[in-house]
């Protein structure tokens, strides 16, 4: 799609200077238009990722000069993967967090989108209500839910004890903190996925359902053989973006548990933040970033392969 208008026979890396002065002037304008953004991307994205890779092979506290960083080879990586129990723990927590959040958001997002796509009154109002947490700062949600799930005077415990059940620690309990965070993450994003799924559902032509009815298909068959296959691209988008986002969770964990108790809710990016900005171990933190980056890429590729449209291959 990219090179469709590119009529030249020369290879793309060979400069192709237009003949006329007019064309050359236009070309100069194009360079003017792209120069500042490209420069910014080089300085704030491409340069940094290369530098980050370089740092991950060194020991560095960010205070000593870059030229004096002691070389460590791959030892940052091997340390993380074999000797850093907190990193492995945070990796496991991050996976659980992502699996729980993505699974629930996909099921609930699609379920509520189906409800809202059926004959229903006040579709706009429902959508607005479900969407409110999406635009609210994660920090605010963290503060609200720390209070709601408070062990001693949180409203959830007030209700639980009113039914005669024992108080639950939620965010302060080693076996409950991560699950509570998953709940908050679902609360935070489900409205977004409802809107995405709803748009996808509204893009399916009604004719298909009419035809299925003529053929005597039931509700489940309609869902299974029309809705789900046609929603595949939307499903792919939801699963991939939600997974990428969930694996990078920071704000919510930082402002609720801070990874406590006993690292039971520590996530990779929070551990990386602590390693870099509390303990000044930039090399190790950069290695952590690259390990997570690689994991995210692998998972994304796997998801795209599993979920992409295979209509023409089967």
């Amino acid at each position, binding site marked *: 799609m990219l*090179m469709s208008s*590119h009529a030249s026979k020369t290879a*793309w890396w*060979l*400069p192709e*200077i237009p003949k006329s002065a007019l064309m050359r002037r*236009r070309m100069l*304008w*194009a*360079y003017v*238009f*792209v120069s*500042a*953004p*490209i420069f910014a*991307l080089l300085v704030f994205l*491409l*340069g*940094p*990722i290369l*530098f*980050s890779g370089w740092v991950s092979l060194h020991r560095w506290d960010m205070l000593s000069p870059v030229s004096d960083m002691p070389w460590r080879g791959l030892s940052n990586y091997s340390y993380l993967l074999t000797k850093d129990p907190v990193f492995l723990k945070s990796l496991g927590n991050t996976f659980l967090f992502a699996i729980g959040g993505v699974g629930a958001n996909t099921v609930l997002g699609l379920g*509520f989108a189906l*409800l809202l*796509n*059926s*004959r*229903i009154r006040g579709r706009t109002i429902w959508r*607005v209500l479900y*969407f*409110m*947490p999406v*635009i*609210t*700062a994660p*920090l*605010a*949600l963290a*503060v*609200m*839910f720390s*209070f709601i799930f408070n062990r001693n*005077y949180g409203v959830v415990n007030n209700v639980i004890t009113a039914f005669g059940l024992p108080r639950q620690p939620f965010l302060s309990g080693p076996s409950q903190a991560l699950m509570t965070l998953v709940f908050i993450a679902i*609360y935070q994003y489900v409205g977004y996925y409802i*809107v*995405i799924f709803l748009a996808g*559902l509204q893009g*399916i032509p009604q004719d298909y359902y009419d035809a299925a009815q003529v053929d005597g298909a039931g509700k489940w068959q*309609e869902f299974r053989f029309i809705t789900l296959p046609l929603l595949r*691209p939307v499903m792919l*988008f939801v699963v991939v*973006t939600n997974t990428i986002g969930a694996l990078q969770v*920071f704000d919510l964990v*930082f*402002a609720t548990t801070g990874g406590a108790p006993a690292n039971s809710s520590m996530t990779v990016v929070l551990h990386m933040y602590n390693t870099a*900005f509390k303990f000044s171990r930039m090399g190790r*933190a950069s290695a952590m*970033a*690259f390990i997570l*980056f690689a994991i995210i890429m692998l998972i994304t590729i796997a998801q795209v392969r599993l979920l992409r449209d295979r209509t023409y291959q089967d």
Partner: protein
Amino acid sequence: MSDHSSRLQPMGAVVKYLVLFGGAFVMVFPFVWMIIASLMTAGEIQLRPPVWLPAEPQFGNYIELTESIPIGRLYFNSLFTSGLIVFGVLLSSSLAGFAFAKYRFPGREALFYLILATMMIPFFVTLIPVFFIVRQLGWIDTYQGLVVPGLTSAYGIFLMRQFIVSLPDELIDAARIDGASELRIFWRIVVPLVKPALATLGTFTFIGSWNAFLWPLLVINSRELMTLPLGINSMKSLYADNTNLLMAGTAVAVIPMLIVFIFLQRYFIKGIALTGLKG
């Protein structure tokens, strides 16, 4: 999809509304509870058995809040920095998107692939180096430090290129024949035609920078430059024993944005559905 079920099964409709209402209750309750708690006394919040409403609404909490938290300043900082970032992203994305879509120049494909590649880089991979660069520039605890790294968006360039490429070339050629300059073509022809895309990109960018926490946390130290999420974060420790004031502060920080959203929800949701399907 299914108009037929509710006609035949009135019970199904009841269940549908019950489920929708249950979900909506879960969604709205935390906000309502925040406001109720913000009107309680510090003692009422911890009462056992618990109370569900304040004996008398403590509107004074909000006054007490403004005496120790510079709410106006937080709002100014958030609006100012988010505004600059939105302006920068819209301008740089549409200019570069225009060049990639409608100009031929050596290196165009290579540069565009570069942008596609950078789109996939997550923020946490570049966090340490960008922080280092900003520190070397002496921009720690300044607006520049907060804003400049966010002024360009690879995703924004990609999005605008996709929209501009579908504009007919004839429009641009006709303007050129009329003697319009390249900048004039951009401003008078391209920008008006891609306004919906700009609105979507602007909305996303605004919400992103308005709610951003990690980068401001690293760059900003002084109270005068704090944005709203940083303000909430500092209230967390300041009001550790005054949950009522903490809730009042959080309410002041989030409710105005929610009101704006409710008025503009049509555009928000349209834009989100649009990019979701494009992506």
